[in-house]
């Protein structure tokens, strides 16, 4: 198992390298970052000054080396916008995003997995059809719209919850629910189809032929087998939320996490900060995926170390 984890982490390292190269390629070779960062009214002097201060006047290979060695040392430079180390700013905002994503994943799991399981037991029944419809709409709904509508109903009209910001539990409710509904839709779908798939397998017939009771077959055998794709999906959704949806939901609700930070960095044209953000996000995704692989392997003994 240790060997497995090490191999997975090594693979993750490879991914990080690829991400770093991609970021470098895009920010240095496809465009002129200095021009992007400066306002249109900037003079040639301003340009030269910024360029040298960022080390962007050096030859590309040297830049690459600086970039990579900086990344390894976790030094991304100072944020253009705020002047303090970029990584520090990102780490500051990270807990807020963890809280949001954690709360929504928790909600999605305790709500949608049991629903998916129960629905799969009577396929075609009303719960099943209801769940399929709800999850379809859930995963089709743009989060920014769902968020806006929830704000309208619960904040503007009913006044139960605040419209945006953070600081209390009531601030967390709407954003978490928004995120949970979208991820939950997909989780319910996969839970249901995974259960159905297992329930149709020959070993279930064998278990019935052995005279084992339905509830036993379900809890001791089927659930365990069905869990595999679900684990993979939950990990995928979490990673996706951290590195993706969070941006949208945090923007809608002005939630002070890394997602909102990203948009602010864009508005401020702070490429330094964006680079740090992408790096941290990539690291998070790698960690989540590795954890998921470990859980998967501990359930399924057939998984070979690739």
């Amino acid at each position, binding site marked *: 198992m240790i060997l497995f984890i090490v191999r997975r982490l090594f693979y993750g390292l490879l991914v990080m390298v690829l991400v770093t190269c991609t970021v470098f390629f895009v920010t240095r070779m496809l465009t002129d970052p200095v021009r992007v960062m400066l306002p249109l009214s900037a003079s040639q002097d301003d340009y030269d000054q910024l360029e040298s201060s960022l080390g962007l006047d050096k030859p590309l290979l040297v830049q690459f080396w600086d970039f990579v060695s900086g990344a390894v040392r976790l030094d991304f430079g100072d944020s253009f916008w705020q002047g303090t180390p970029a990584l520090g700013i990102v780490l500051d905002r990270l807990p807020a995003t963890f809280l949001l994503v954690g709360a929504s994943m928790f909600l999605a799991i305790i709500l949608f997995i049991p629903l998916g399981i129960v629905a799969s037991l009577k396929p075609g029944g009303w719960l099943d059809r209801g769940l399929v419809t709800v999850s379809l709409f859930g995963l089709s709904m743009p989060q920014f719209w769902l968020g806006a509508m929830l704000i309208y109903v619960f904040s503007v009209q009913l006044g139960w919850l605040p419209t945006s910001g953070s600081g209390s539990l009531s601030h967390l409710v709407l954003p978490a629910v928004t995120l949970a509904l979208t991820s939950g839709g997909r989780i319910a779908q996969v839970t249901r189809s995974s259960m159905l798939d297992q329930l149709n397998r*020959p070993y279930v017939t064998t278990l019935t032929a052995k005279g084992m009771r339905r509830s036993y077959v379900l809890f001791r055998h089927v659930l365990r087998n069905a869990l595999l794709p679900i684990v993979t999906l939950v990990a995928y959704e979490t990673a996706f939320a951290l590195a993706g949806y969070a941006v949208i939901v945090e923007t809608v609700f002005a939630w002070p996490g890394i997602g909102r930070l990203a948009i602010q960095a864009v508005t401020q044209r702070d490429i330094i900060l964006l680079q740090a953000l992408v790096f941290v996000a990539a690291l998070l995704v790698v960690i989540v995926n590795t954890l998921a692989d470990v859980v998967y392997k501990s359930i399924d003994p057939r998984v070979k170390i690739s």
Partner: protein
Amino acid sequence: MRDETKQPADDFLLSVDNLKVEFYNERGTVHAVQDVSLGVRAGETLGLVGESGSGKSVTAAALMDLVPITGRVANGTFRWHGREVTSKELGRLRGSKITMVFQDPMSALNPLVHVGAQITEVLRKHLKMSRGDARRRALELFDLVGIPEPLRRFKQYPFEFSGGMAQRVVIAMALAAEPEVLIADEPTTALDVTIQAQILDLIAHLQKELNIAIVLITHDLGVVAGVADHLAVMYAGRVVESGVASEVFEHPSHPYMRGLLASTPHPREVTDRLVPIPGNPPVVTKILPGCAFADRCSEATDRCRTERPELVAPPEDDVPSDRKVACWHAA
């Protein structure tokens, strides 16, 4: 030799009369089993033979109340130890008194649970054993079915077993609760020929030792040849010939059985050519009058196509009482 006055149904452990099973799909109803009556006695093996689609597996499933949700038992009188029971009641005997061995051992076992647990769960459920006792008994069963290094194998997962070994595990699972009837549905079809012989030997040996009744389902005559005491040949959802196995092999009455024998290579005989039966077995979506085999039968006459022959004793004298054929031209 059977006493001619004795009712054959009296000493059957498990039997069914007039079984009718239907399946439903988008095109209509499939009459998988139309009117089957058979039974099995303690210490004996009933060979249930037929091509794919003859209804043999469905019959076995019906005996255990395992007909899948796409079908249902439309008719049938089930008897256990001579006493009439419902299909559901038979279902409750699953795993303890009536057990099944399936065709593909790899998919019959849960790939994520080690094999030892898959046996002990039967022991703990049906014989109410404690964990320690169940474990010990499971290891004994491994021995019984001929699995070497039982201690090491106990903790292994199905994918670590070969086909033949896995089938032994499945057999051990089926025997764990000391059943009275074992239904083996194509137990050797998924295995290599050499392993087939081993498994069949094992089954025969176990039967003698444990005096269980066995229903051996197969499409391969070679499989039943040495093992079955009685034979029931099925075609298109009905039994077309039945009787003591050796009798049926030596004097096949029904053209279908004769055709099967002619198309099966016999290891000791040198034949010029194998004669296959022309055509394919039907999928019965509409019950037509007449014999279902008529289209492929070389001896079919008009009567065969309009009147269905009943399964009765052949017309000659000097024939054992449980010998039956469904043919107007029984030889």
